[in-house]
């Protein structure tokens, strides 16, 4: 399930964390489901086992996953972040926005850049908090 982007400059443990969060948001990882074991990730990516363990530890600290001694790491029963599917209004609004941007001739790359700017916008900071940080 994991892929690493060596050119992104993002620390590897944070790349792994972001990918688990993304899978949760998209509903592809369900509560109670097991994450790949550290050994499986190490074998697949040739990555340091300590790095994988660190990513899982941080995710556990955020309450998204739970490690069970000797069994592995599992998605928490009720992960704090709501899935995208549970936010149809937000998705619909975003879809309308994308349609409008496309009508104005914007490419996907430019839309992503705009979204990144909007996320960094100080006036959006409180709204982002209010919506539980779902981006």
């Amino acid at each position: 399930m994991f892929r690493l982007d060596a050119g992104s400059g993002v620390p590897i443990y944070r790349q792994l964390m972001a990918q688990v969060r993304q899978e949760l948001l998209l509903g592809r990882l369900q509560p109670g489901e097991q994450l790949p074991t550290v050994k499986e990730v190490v074998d697949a990516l040739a990555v340091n086992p300590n790095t994988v363990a660190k990513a899982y530890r941080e995710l556990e600290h955020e309450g998204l996953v739970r490690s069970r001694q000797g069994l592995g790491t599992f998605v928490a029963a009720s992960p704090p972040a709501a899935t995208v599917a549970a936010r149809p209004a937000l998705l619909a609004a975003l879809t309308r926005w994308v349609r409008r941007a496309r009508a104005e001739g914007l490419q996907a790359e430019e839309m992503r850049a705009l979204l990144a700017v909007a996320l960094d916008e100080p006036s959006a900071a409180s709204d982002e908090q209010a919506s539980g940080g779902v981006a």
Partner: protein
Amino acid sequence: MTAQVLDCVGMGHRYSRRGPWGLRDCTLMVPAGRVVALIGPNGAGKTTLLHLAAGLLPATEGSVRVAGARPARRLERIGFAPQGAPLWPHLRVRDVLGIGAHLNPRWDATLASDRIAKLGIAPRARVSTLSGGQRAQVALTLVLAKRPELLLLDEPLANLDPIARRAFLASMFEACTHSGVAVLFSSHVVAELERICDDLVVLADGRVRLAGDIDRLRRTHRVITGPVGWPTTTATQPATVPNDGSQARGWQVISARQAAGRTTALVRIDTHLLAGPGLDAAEPTFDELVLGYLDQHHPDQEPSQQDLRSQVEAPA
């Protein structure tokens, strides 16, 4: 605090009484289960450091301890694989392992034969007929079967193709996970080290330039882009804001380069750093961090220390 497998304090080695120093003032700790990359150009002192830790060279100054004693008294706990996996080319693989068994009191014959079988290497094959990747794996098997606490690998990834490299790393990581061995390995290639190591040690001209946990080091550095002339012009210094309300201690310019009308500098910070007017700050990538330290233009001079407080208090 966990016991250090390797503990060097002010360690140095001089090749002859009036000769050059191979390594000076090296303080370094490697706890169990950590993977530490030793990075630096050829001649930086990487092999000297590994030889000191392996007990092959005496420390001219300072001290080096492996599991609490001098390396020479801990040889059975140290697995050292020299550069290029120099094995006896005319011997068969099983004879190489036989020599290992004969020389090492802690030898694990089952581990050795299982590993060779798993790798698909015929025990009766002669070393000279093996590929570079297979030879590296036999050399790794030779040191792993010692059941070492400290694994010292000199340029283990050099001359390995991507597939062999991946297989070698998988073997190394498996050993770390199962036996908690501490690994110190050298490399003159920076690419992909980020996914391999926990800590890095940057060596240049026989001195440690940078050492520590890679994530922590990235958090305490910034790549700052500013106008040409910065950071020598004091008009646009970045501001450091302490997280804990104490005074800002300052920042250090490690290296700076000019290109396309902008200056890009690697800066070490003590605390949270905000970009100043006309400056953009970003956390460095692994490569930017390492190359910034290898790229110091005046390696014998200390990087310029900027004290923010004195700047703030200086009359405008």
